[in-house]
């Protein structure tokens, strides 16, 4: 049975799709455009404050190719009209074996679009592979 998706789910799904599409299929130099100027990224425990620092980190990740596969994504609206997102999946870097990952995003409306103000990424160290 198809249910009408809530608006925050539609916006969230659209962002997630765009984010991983850019991540996997470009040189990641334009990923910074998805973030607000004061956005904050925590990447495996290291903090990157601001769009420029985030852009620099993502563009400098040391692999030739990466592919993300999203297996689950959860969306919630917040009291302050932001969108809170949790993504689960696996990623494959170059010829390495696939690894689980977990990422959280916070989106804020900045008409005409939605930007990411918070991003936390961790590899799934306890995850059970199939």
């Amino acid at each position, binding site marked *: 049975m198809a249910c009408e998706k809530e608006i925050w789910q539609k916006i969230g799904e659209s962002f997630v799709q765009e984010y991983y599409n850019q991540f996997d299929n470009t040189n990641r130099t334009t990923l910074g455009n998805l973030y607000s100027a004061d956005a904050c990224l925590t990447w495996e425990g290291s903090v990157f404050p601001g769009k420029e620092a985030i852009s620099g980190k993502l563009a400098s990740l040391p692999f030739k190719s990466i592919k993300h596969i999203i297996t689950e994504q959860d969306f919630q609206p917040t009291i302050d009209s932001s969108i809170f997102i949790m993504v689960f999946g696996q990623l494959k870097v170059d010829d390495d074996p696939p690894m689980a990952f977990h990422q959280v995003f916070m989106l804020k409306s900045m008409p005409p679009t939605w930007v990411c103000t918070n991003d936390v990424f961790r590899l799934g160290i*306890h995850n059970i592979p199939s």
Partner: protein
Amino acid sequence: MVDQPLWEQIGSSFVQHYYQLFDSDRSQLGTIYIDESCLTWEGQQFQGKKAIVGKLISLPFPKIVHSITVQDHQPTPDCNILSMVVGQLKVDDDPVMGFHQSFLLKNINDAWVCTNDMFRLAIHNFG
């Protein structure tokens, strides 16, 4: 020694309190949610303090222990705190399982409450 930023102190303190309550008496968890809170538990949505506590109390195990492996905290533009936790949990005599949980904390009348909570077991990455 560098002082922890305030949001890390508040986030860590909340996380410690949350799992302490969860592991000792889940019925006390109502104190950390408000009527506008939202929980997504393994993909199911629960809206409001009553529904959330109802779900948590009804979880079918008498005993659970959480162990936090890593936690990350960030301030948000609306002065909230975003916390992401990775850890392991053990229910009754079952084997240990990994879990991921994210919280959004808001300061209301000088108390930090949880307005958004998302929980998943670490079994969803290889769907």
